[in-house]
């Protein structure tokens, strides 16, 4: 599996650290109720097919990436800087 970092280019999977489903972009507000925090921390859509993960380019530029990936084929369909996703809403 190779991931194309928008800053560094195509790199081996070894350079990246997986940080799970890209739910961190939708973090509940601190005063949200327990159900919202449970949904955020524990519950997952866990799709068989297209998913969005967070990967950290640990051995590269240190950027946080949102990777659109197929969990059945391991094919990577798109990579975006997490900072751009946040800025774009």
């Amino acid at each position: 599996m190779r991931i194309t970092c928008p800053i560094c280019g195509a790199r081996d999977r070894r350079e990246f650290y997986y940080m799970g489903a890209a739910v961190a972009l939708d973090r509940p507000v601190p005063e949200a109720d327990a159900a919202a925090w449970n949904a955020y921390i524990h519950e997952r859509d866990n799709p068989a097919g297209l998913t969005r993960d967070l990967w950290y380019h640990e051995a590269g530029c240190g950027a946080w990436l949102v990777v659109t990936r197929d969990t059945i084929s391991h094919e990577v369909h798109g990579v975006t800087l997490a900072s751009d996703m946040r800025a774009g809403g």
Partner: protein
Amino acid sequence: MRFSGLRVLREGLRGNRGWRPHWRDASPRPAYDAIIIGGGGHGLATAYYLAKKHGAQRIAVLEKGYLGGGNIGRNTTIVRANYLLPGNSEFYSHSLKLWEGMEEELNYNVMHSQRGQIVLFHDDGQRDAAIRRGNAMRNQGDDAELLSVADLRRMVPYLDYDQARFPIRGGLLQRRAGTARHDAVAWGYARAASDLGVDLIQNCEVTGVDVKDGAVRGVQTTRGAIAAPKVGIIVAGRSSQVAAMAGMRLPIESHVLQAFVTEGLKPCLDHVISFGMGHFYISQSDKGGLVFGGDLDFYASYAARGNLPMAEHVMEAGMTLMPMIGKAKVLRSWGGIMDMTPDGSPIIDRTSVEGLYVDCGWCYGGFKAVPASGDCMAHLMALDRPHEAAKRFRLDRFRTGRGLMDEEGTGSQHNLH
């Protein structure tokens, strides 16, 4: 279908034409008292105990492929009861006892071999942790022995004891742990369940769960609608998809775990050996192949195959621990889809839908749990209250924070186990 030495001899002389299928390949009826979704080890065991211990009459096991084609057909076959925390401890203890009676119970040779499992440690802190774990195991009523380096050198002389990074300082041995023939476990439960009248329905994929007024009414399948007041979801890595059909999100992320087997060798490895620091464990199958594995690939996956970095990591760990295996040729590698929970412990519980139950979250330890999971899930489905040995496997422990079983002490979050 019964086996005997005489029968094997006779069939051998007659071209093996007399063997008959072990179970009925049933077609779905319109309604059952209970439906088990998933014809793997846990599902078949649940169906068996529902029929055997609770006298349930009309039970169907729905399997989208063939029986035993999922993780029960692709694991590394280790059976042990060496857990530390209350909840896990009594459950796996119960499971090991069921393993010890399984062949008699099912009248089926599952090749259960209690060859002992050795968990290695490498420094004083790990020795203390091993002693603590061993005491917890003995308090639970199971066996555990602390091995010195001298003991180990006698038992397993081929380890590299003085390696620079992880010198071996001893091990924790459970003699009752071991391995079993994984497919035979599925076949044994399938035959026994079928004999008790359970309908085992293959090539029958569930496509919808019918819920009305907060209660389950049945399921939609590729072979038509089937009604039932009780439905158990026992589908391991696919739990999230089936639960979603009932409008639920589970605290599960599916990951790939790889395993490897070498060409057949003469007997050389008498135990199951776990090298936790290297993320490596190994045993030798009765056919002679070295069966070994390591850790998850650590990204969500349904591919049932992994990537090269983890394969390399596992091989390197194996070579670090026992250089003698370096000349063995790897025959095959494969991957299984693991239903990972945030705290690394399983779930056997009711759901928010009446009559709908889940048995999932087995992470990478489902094989040894097969008999107790079946027993406890059947108990829950039949009596609507949890079995004593599985009452802590609650679905709501993540929401409430009460009763989390974080066996590795890494935190209750995804991607940490």
